[in-house]
């Protein structure tokens, strides 16, 4: 298993996995040179749903671009909006009320749980188990209902504003969130019994696609890909932003680097996010959700600003180059899965196709977010 192979050129064939393939979860294509079931070489081809968000960023004014961020990652949209509003606020010196920051953190964490739940279901489905997806979607539905009541949408939120929020949370939301936390904990226990402790499941993931720290660093991997390889890296802790320093939570790190470690990191992260939501609800201060003094027109002073946040998929960064105008001079979106996916080509060499596709699932890919 996973042994290097030496062979002649005429013994291989090319297998096109994608752009329409059930395991790629979107329009991603991997050209694999195969020797039987073994992958000799792979080349990932992306860009099938490239929409040039960065050009749109240059053409639209700052508030107009708010809604684009949630179209990047349809599963964990709020984290991406968070980075955008943070960098613009930082650049133009807008002070955000504390209540707004707390609500942002709660919402982002709920969204992170929803994203991880969907990934969990889809990942187990990649491995051939169908039912966990349905269970995960039912839990996710509770989150979407809560978020819908406050933000007005279920998937592509446009909830954050420069300086604050679009809508305040009400008592119904707080009650629902408090009810949700213990229910989710119960579900996590069920997932552990049904999936994590399943012997077939563990056998399929243990020791598959071990990633070294070095390869993670060379490719700039983040999220569970880095943390599953023993790298204690989470932007929320390493480079604290927003109100995250106020929360007490841990960063799950597993040193093995295999697909199971990546799986365990994400499952543990759900628990940590629940802790943040709980603490956020406890500490939620009163007050306004928008600052009293806010410039009518957002025109950050000329300069170069960068803000990274930890989204559900890893370290997402927005670089804003402003020339003092109404629109950004340049808006660079650094998406985490772009880097995570990039190491697939190198890491999957010599693997069997079913292991490689399990590995691909463990990277937590969202294609619109890679292609932007």
């Amino acid at each position, binding site marked *: 298993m996973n042994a290097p192979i030496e062979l002649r050129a005429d013994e291989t064939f090319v297998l096109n996995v994608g752009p329409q393939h059930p395991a790629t979860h979107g329009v991603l294509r991997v050209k694999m040179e195969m020797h039987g079931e073994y992958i000799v070489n792979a080349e990932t081809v*992306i*860009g099938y749903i*490239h929409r*040039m968000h*960065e*050009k749109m960023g*240059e053409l639209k004014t700052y508030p107009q671009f708010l809604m684009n961020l949630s179209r990047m990652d349809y599963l964990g949209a709020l984290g991406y909006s968070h980075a955008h509003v943070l*960098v613009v606020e*930082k650049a133009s010196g807008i002070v955000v009320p504390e209540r707004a920051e707390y609500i942002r953190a709660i919402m982002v964490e709920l969204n992170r749980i929803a994203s991880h739940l969907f990934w969990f279901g889809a990942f187990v489905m990649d491995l051939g188990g169908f039912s966990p997806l349905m269970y995960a979607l039912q839990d996710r539905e509770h989150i979407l209902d809560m978020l819908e009541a406050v933000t007005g949408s279920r998937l592509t939120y446009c909830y954050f504003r420069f300086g604050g929020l679009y809508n305040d949370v009400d008592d119904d939301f707080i009650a629902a969130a408090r009810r949700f936390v213990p229910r989710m904990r119960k579900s996590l226990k069920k997932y552990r019994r049904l999936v994590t402790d399943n012997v077939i499941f563990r056998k399929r993931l243990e020791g598959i696609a071990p990633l070294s720290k070095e390869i*993670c*660093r*060379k*490719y*700039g*991997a983040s999220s569970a890909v*880095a943390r599953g390889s023993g*790298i*204690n*890296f989470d932007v929320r*802790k*390493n*480079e604290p932003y927003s109100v995250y320093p106020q929360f007490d939570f841990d960063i799950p790190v597993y040193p093995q680097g295999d697909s199971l470690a990546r799986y365990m990191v994400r499952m543990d992260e759900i628990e940590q996010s629940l802790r943040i939501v709980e603490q956020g609800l406890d500490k939620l201060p009163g007050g306004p959700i928008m600052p009293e003094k806010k410039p009518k027109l957002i025109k950050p*002073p*000329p*300069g*170069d*600003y*960068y*803000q*990274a946040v930890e989204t559900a998929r890893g*370290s997402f*960064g927005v*670089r804003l*180059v*402003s*020339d*003092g105008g109404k629109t950004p*001079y*340049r808006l*660079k979106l*650094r998406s985490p899965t*772009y*880097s995570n996916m*990039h*190491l697939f080509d*190198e890491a999957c060499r010599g693997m069997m196709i079913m292991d490689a596709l399990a590995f691909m699932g463990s990277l937590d890919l969202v294609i619109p977010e890679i*292609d*932007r």
Partner: protein
Amino acid sequence: MICEKTRTALEHLIPTPDAATAGDGQESGAKGQTPRPNGVIERDYAVHGYHLDAQMACEQLLAAVAILDENEFFLETITGVDWIAENQLELIYDFSRYDFDLCRVVLRTRVDRRNPVVPTITGIYAGANWHERETHDFFGIVFSGHPHLIPLLLPEDADFHPLLKDFKA
């Protein structure tokens, strides 16, 4: 800690003229101002979101990246900016660290807009491959020595570079 070390190493590589430290408050982004001279500037993290900002000639780029690689930085992203007024293309390399010794480093280099050629850093950071291809797609910057410089996000036959300021759809 590591910031100091990296700064010293980078300053050793790029001798800073006195003018650069004097013009600390001056932003490179402002239109119509004199372009920033090469050198290392320490930025206010709370405002800019990074600590070290080093501008250099593109011949020094590989040496600078090698310094960061030795100090175990990871490559965050590579991007470009089109300064059409100055007829230059700026390349921005973002580096950060996995440990808690926080230090974000930004390397910048400027090339002529008509003949944008920079050396590739894929030899040092394999992960730069896609970032450089993307920058090639959007700005037409040629990374000399890149192993596979074909369009990545744009269609295979794309001969346009959408993020150039004079690009008309």
